[in-house]
């Protein structure tokens, strides 16, 4: 037993012997929990996950003997946890609308019983290693939960439960490790959140994650097992982009970490996801979603922990062989929590008050993404997508600039685009993806061989148009040749007909890869044909006034992804329109029309 010496906001100094750095500590009469972040002789510095109001020097402190860990087992899916994995619905039952302090609740419900199907190929005396599967539980309609041997345990089976109904706490098997120690295996195990879960080896990520968002999938793709960031000033639509990914991504599991963000946004997910169906499985989205919520008004230290809690759960499902996407909104709030703690510890700040270890912590976090060969021998992946909230929209600030060096996919959101209600406001000049070549193989195989060329052409038109509009802003449109003016029209067509995608438009909220490609292809067909018409002397205005031009801009919200054939049919209509114009100007009809 130790005692509290000093209380400075969430940082509490205690006198406590034989405590290890990183261990959890319970302090005071209220029973607040925190973790040791520094040791000095018999004094330990503890960051406390809850408000320390009312705590006094002299009150007791005791070590819990283990670092911050999460419970991993059935009952995670569809749940909502706080930053230290306490289930919020349970807290609601215990302490009402507001979160009380010092409440201990197990992360996984101890009463719920699950139907466990034991792996029939296992028998007494078999050798099990960490990460092996001993059976399954159907967690939700679509998620089969593989019960894993904890990664740090291996040995010989000495007891082996049959299939049946079990609670997470029931022992379902026992293994004897080489040192003779007998380990109880339950439906769940614990794992410390700051230690990445082990795997057999890394596997090169090779398949794009399809989010159904054209500007993301087609222009700046991310792979399953990749790392991405969404930086943007407030109001640029970061949360919308993240929610769209959580909604539509073709991953098996989505973990949404609301880290220091708005309470109502999480409620939006909580209320809307059960109603939405996953386009890939046809089931409710909530069946494959887990929320970790530490809203901005919740204690700041738990915010720091929340992204580790999220990523550890993500790794756990990866180890079962699933493709997991974790979105963290926002990593800036996590970095600020780091800053707040370091500031209270009196550590020397380097940039904008952030501690010197910001960059290494960030890169270590993102490194937990990846596609791996799991310990059980199959493939799984964790894709990490972090929102970044740069103060004042300044991308040169520390969190954004460090993140930019770490992630291969960078979706930069622009205030100007958002102000013009061009959503998603992903800026095509500042964004990048290092995965384009790998993604191109998939697109070429699955959708169309010309994907890479079409994508490159569209980006070239957009960037050319940006240069030209600078000229227009200086000297006016009269200075441009008809060809140049057509470039501007072409870019507008790509922006309005392809890039812009409304999250609230039921028809267009999700676009299949085929729909994405067809829209891009039509825009570029019109663009290419337009150039030919201009050579024939057709005025730009006359082409722009073609009814199919206006119809193309609305096409995305007329046909759903299932109606891709109709989009293709529209393409023929466009060609016909253009061909008529061509004939009008004395050129022969094109044979294919």
């Amino acid at each position, binding site marked *: 037993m130790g005692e509290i010496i000093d*209380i400075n906001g969430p940082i509490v100094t205690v006198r406590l012997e034989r405590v290890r750095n990183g261990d959890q500590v319970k302090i005071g009469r209220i029973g607040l929990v925190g973790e040791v972040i520094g040791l000095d002789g018999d004094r330990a510095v503890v960051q406390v996950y809850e408000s320390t109001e*009312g705590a006094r020097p002299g009150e007791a402190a005791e070590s819990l003997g283990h670092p911050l860990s999460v419970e991993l087992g059935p009952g995670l899916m569809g749940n909502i946890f706080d930053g230290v994995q306490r289930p919020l619905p349970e807290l609601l039952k215990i302490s009402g*609308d507001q979160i*009380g302090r010092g409440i201990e609740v197990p992360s996984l419900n101890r009463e719920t019983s699950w139907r466990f199907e034991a792996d029939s190929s296992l028998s007494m005396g078999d050798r099990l290693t960490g990460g092996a599967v001993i059976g399954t539980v159907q967690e939700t309609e679509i998620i089969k939960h593989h019960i894993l041997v904890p990664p740090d345990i291996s040995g010989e089976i000495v007891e082996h439960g049959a299939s049946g109904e079990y609670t997470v706490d029931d022992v379902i098997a026992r293994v004897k490790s080489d040192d003779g120690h007998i380990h109880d295996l339950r439906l769940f195990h614990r794992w410390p959140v700051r230690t990445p879960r082990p795997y057999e080896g890394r596997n090169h990520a090779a398949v794009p994650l399809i989010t159904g968002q054209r500007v993301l999938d087609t222009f700046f793709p991310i792979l399953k097992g990749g790392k991405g960031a969404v930086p943007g000033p407030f109001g640029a639509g970061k949360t919308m982009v993240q929610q769209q990914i959580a909604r539509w991504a073709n991953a098996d599991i989505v973990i949404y970490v609301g880290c220091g963000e708005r309470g109502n946004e999480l409620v939006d997910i909580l209320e809307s996801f059960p109603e939405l169906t996953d386009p890939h499985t046809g089931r409710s989205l909530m069946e494959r979603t887990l929320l970790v919520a530490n809203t901005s008004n919740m204690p700041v230290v738990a915010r720091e922990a929340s992204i580790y809690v999220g990523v550890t759960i993500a790794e756990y499902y990866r180890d079962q062989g699933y493709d997991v996407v974790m979105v963290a909104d926002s990593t800036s709030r996590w970095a600020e929590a780091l800053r707040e703690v370091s500031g209270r510890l009196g550590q020397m700040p380097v940039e904008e*008050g952030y501690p010197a270890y910001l960059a290494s912590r960030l890169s270590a976090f993102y490194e937990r993404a990846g596609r791996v060969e799991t310990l059980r021998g199959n493939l799984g992946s964790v894709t990490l997508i972090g929102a970044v909230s740069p*103060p004042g929209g300044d991308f040169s600030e520390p969190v954004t600039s460090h993140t930019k060096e770490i992630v291969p996919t960078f979706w930069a959101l622009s205030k100007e685009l958002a102000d013009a209600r061009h959503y998603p406001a992903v800026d095509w000049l500042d964004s990048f993806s290092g995965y384009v070549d790998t993604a191109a193989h998939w697109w070429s195989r699955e959708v169309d061989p010309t994907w890479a060329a079409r994508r490159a052409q569209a980006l070239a038109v957009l960037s050319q148009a940006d240069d030209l509009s600078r000229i227009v802003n200086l000297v006016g449109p009269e200075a441009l040749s008809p060809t140049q003016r057509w470039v501007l029209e072409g870019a507008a067509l790509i922006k309005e007909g392809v890039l812009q995608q409304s999250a609230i438009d039921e028809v267009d909220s999700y676009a299949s890869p085929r729909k994405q490609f067809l829209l891009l292809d039509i825009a570029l067909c019109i663009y290419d044909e337009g150039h030919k018409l201009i050579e024939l002397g057709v005025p730009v205005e006359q082409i722009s006034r073609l009814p199919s031009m206006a119809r193309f801009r609305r096409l995305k919200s007329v046909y759903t992804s299932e109606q891709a054939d109709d989009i293709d049919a529209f393409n023929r209509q466009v060609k016909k329109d253009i061909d008529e114009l061509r004939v009008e100007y004395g050129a022969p009809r094109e044979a294919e029309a």
Partner: protein
Amino acid sequence: MREKEFRMAAAARGALLYMKGVRGVALGDRVVVRDQSGRRRSGQVIRTSNEVVLVQVFEGTEGLDLDQTWAGFLEKPFELSLSPEILGRVFSGTGAPRDDRPPIISTLKRNVNGAPVNPAARTYPKEFIQTGISTIDGLNSLVRGQKLPIFSGSGLPHNRLAAQIVRQAKLLSQEADFSVVFAAMGVSYTDARFFEEEFESSGVLRNVVMFINLADDPPMERLLLPRAALTAAEYLAYELDQHVLVVLTDMTNYAEALREVATAKGDVPARKGYPGYLYSDLAELYERAGRIHERHGSITMMPVLSMPSDDITHPIPDLTGYITEGQIVLSRELQSQGIYPPVNVPPSLSRLMKDGIGADFTREDHPRVAAQLYAAYARSLEARNLASIIGAEELSERDRRYLEFAEGFEKRFVGQGEDEDRSIIETLEIAWELLSGLPPEALNRVTEEDLQKYHQWGRARDPEETATAGDAGVNGD
């Protein structure tokens, strides 16, 4: 209650008082500091150990003689006494009456810091509030339980706008019990008086609770004031089932007070000297808005803040924007053209709009009309920019139409009278009138059906008509 007083002040710096040798004091406890002349000041413990206790004194430590300073530790946090009697009353930041009437006596006392609302207890805000102001209702709709700040600058009519919203705000469906909590931090006497008269003349004074800290009142009290005000709001909303509109003005003064204390404490500054925890601190206040399951009341919040040098990237508006559900930005340019309310449309936003409007709430075309107005106005501003370079005569016909659209939009849609209470249908009608000046093929945010139903392309329009009658400022070109 331990009524023991200690006379062990070791140091006083700014608003901070360092007490030595007081053991076992709880963090956050309320302190009464009495000086040589018998004057009492209130304070709060912000850091505690057995050696030193750090007390933040809300009235400041000026004039304290350390040897003759007594500190009494009340063994309880800052609490606000609550009863239905608070309606119609005026309090200071610490909850003391400011209206020469007796203090509230009640057994119900609440810690002003509150506790974080469990996200699982929240209900998503969806009920459209009609404010009668086109730029808000039409483009940045406010819903019950939302926090929507006004970003303003010195000399801009944010107070008039806030007062107009308080006056006109109503739900389309039903009338329910409503009340207003008005929290003024560091405002001038004139501004405070303006609101009081507004509440009086619109007859809502009986439903208003005011917490007032004037510009010459102790600045540290501003740190406590919004917390006290929100505690009152939570009581009204969740225990008396009222729909509460909280007006917090001016958040910039609040943040400055926070910076003052942080600097005195020696906290590591992040940007512009503001402490790294400014975000979390503001969030503690703003996140107290909202709706809660199975509670009939709600808290809708309208913080007003003046952007230092009109800079929206300044930490105060910037961090506020990251927490609140949108923002209404006022523009000096529109103000100088005599347009009231001078709402700068492009940077203004309401994040909760999408679920509170449309067929079931306002009208089916509303979401698309809003998007179309935004897009068309953005395009118009480009045209205007171009016109300033090459002259309006050189513009294409399409661009000239856009130029006209911008003009009409600012004068007729944005501009309206201070007493003009437009219904959402009126707002949408003005919108379509303006959009009818643009050719249908330029409008791709609305559907074909919308165009057929509402768009009147080719209808002759008299430019003279575009000036709104009744708004004095508009005709002054």
